């Protein structure tokens, strides 16, 4: 959403009739989103007024969370950490698992996309494993590693595989024959075709896969941490709930959402950087 608004901003900026667009801009990037948030707050007030013994009002939630918000990197000894530290711990797990996943998935996707026997051999396995909730891998991971930390990373690793493999394979197999004909006429050896033609041509697909994978990984880490415990934003949610501290749960929900959004924006920026293409065309 932030991205959309920024795009709207750029589009609006390039218009000549600045005065009129300023109002439109204000309306599209500030007024309407604000109305949306206002609606949510009203709904919250409504529900809280029904079950106030359990559910704080929005302003109470803010006041209760003031400590967390103002001291995100508080360190009060074991198990007593600011929400910033928890977030960083979760992010670290997600990024580690995600990167490991990408390192395995992208080459596998290339293999499947370029070599038909690999497609025939691996496709059934992928189709069966893909719909399995990544959490089902947690017991298996715990049995293997005996430790919460590597198990969580392993689950994220598995989570990150499928979308990246499938999208990479799709991108690789749908590289335009025209591009390959150019390479053939130039007598480019096939290993160089892989990284000079096929890789850049399928990068948009690869990034689509990575983006979906990272999104799911961020969804899954919260659930994984609820089960494994330890330091992390997911366990924080669970812990605060068991203390009937819903205010903090709301804070966590907000933080998780913003972080997920930022992760998505970050990967989109990375794509723009690597593919050297500005997303909105100037002029």
């Amino acid at each position, binding site marked *: 959403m932030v991205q959309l608004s920024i795009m709207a901003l750029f589009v609006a900026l390039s218009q000549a009739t600045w005065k009129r667009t300023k109002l439109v801009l204000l309306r599209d990037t500030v007024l309407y989103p604000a109305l949306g948030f206002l609606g949510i707050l009203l709904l919250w007030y409504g529900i809280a007024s029904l079950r106030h013994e359990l559910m704080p009002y929005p302003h109470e939630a803010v006041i209760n969370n003031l400590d967390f918000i103002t001291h995100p990197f508080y360190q009060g000894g074991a198990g007593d950490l600011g929400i910033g530290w928890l977030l960083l711990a979760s992010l670290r797990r997600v990024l580690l698992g995600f990167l490991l996943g990408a390192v395995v998935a992208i080459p596998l996707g290339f293999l499947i996309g370029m070599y038909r026997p690999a497609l025939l051999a691996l496709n059934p396995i992928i189709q069966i494993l893909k719909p399995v909730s990544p959490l089902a891998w947690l017991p298996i991971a715990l049995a293997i590693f005996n430790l919460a930390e590597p198990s969580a990373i392993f689950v994220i690793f598995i989570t990150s595989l499928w979308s990246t493999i499938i999208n990479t394979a799709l991108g690789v197999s749908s590289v335009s024959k025209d591009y390959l*004909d150019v390479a*053939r*006429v130039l007598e480019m050896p096939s290993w160089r075709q892989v990284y000079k033609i096929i890789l850049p041509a399928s990068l948009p697909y690869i990034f689509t896969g990575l983006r979906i994978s990272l999104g799911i990984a961020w969804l899954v880490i919260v659930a994984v941490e609820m089960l494994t415990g330890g330091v992390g934003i997911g366990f924080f949610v669970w812990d605060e709930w068991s203390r009937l501290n819903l205010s903090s749960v709301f804070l966590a929900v907000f933080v998780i959402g913003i972080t997920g959004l930022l992760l998505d924006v970050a990967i989109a920026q990375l794509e723009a950087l690597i593919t050297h293409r500005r997303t909105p065309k100037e002029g």
Partner: protein
Amino acid sequence: MTKSTLQTADTNDRQPETAGFLEIKNLSKAYPTGNGGEFVVLHNINLTVQENEFVSLIGHSGCGKSTLLKIVAGLERSTSGLVTLEGREIRKPGSDRMMVFQHYSLLPWLTVRENVRLAVDEVLKDASRAEKASLVNEHLAMVNLMPAANKYPDEISGGMKQRVGIARALAIRPKMLLMDEPFGALDALTRGKLQRQVLDIWEAHRQAVLMVTHDVDEALYMSDRIVMMTNGPAAQIGEILDVPFAHPRDRAALRENPHYYELRNHALNFLDQHFGADD
């Protein structure tokens, strides 16, 4: 320009008695059909192109012009027959026969300059960096693309894209240029300009060219011979028309030449005759 440029070219120009530069002998091409049979596209094609000759290939849509060009490029295999370049059989693609593709085939993740550079890097491996850079610049300048050198293909017009394709093909100094409807997708004005540019370049550095076209005027304006194909399936060479105007050519002067209209009518009659004959 004066009418004197339109005098019939000296026939010694084309030295028909020496063995051809490109030779196509008894070439046939068939694609297998779904039900086990085969679909014959080209049947028994024989054609010779000389070292500095500009030959056009004209015929109705679907008769197999692109197929023939791709076989010469090495991108397709013939079913039977032989294609040789300087006496050596063509079996696979090679940078001695560079193609200007019908749909540009620029790599969209590279800028105009990088597209040309990629070809130069790939083919002229022994050249130094500076040599390569100047070769790229020289050919971009040749087709007036310097101002757009750092733009991406989706930021330039169709005519500019086609010029990149031409610059890319010329930059690697191929022995033979294969062009598949290089001006087909352009508006009349841009087409005229680009035809002139390509002809200028060709007149300055003569080489063998095989160009597919749908346009009789284009073929008459640019080429030394026009190969007219019969309709598919199993298309053959129906007739080869000599275009005896000397280079450099001037379009306006051509149009005032009565011989031009004779040739034009002849070609159009041929195409009309074969129009829909096999449908």
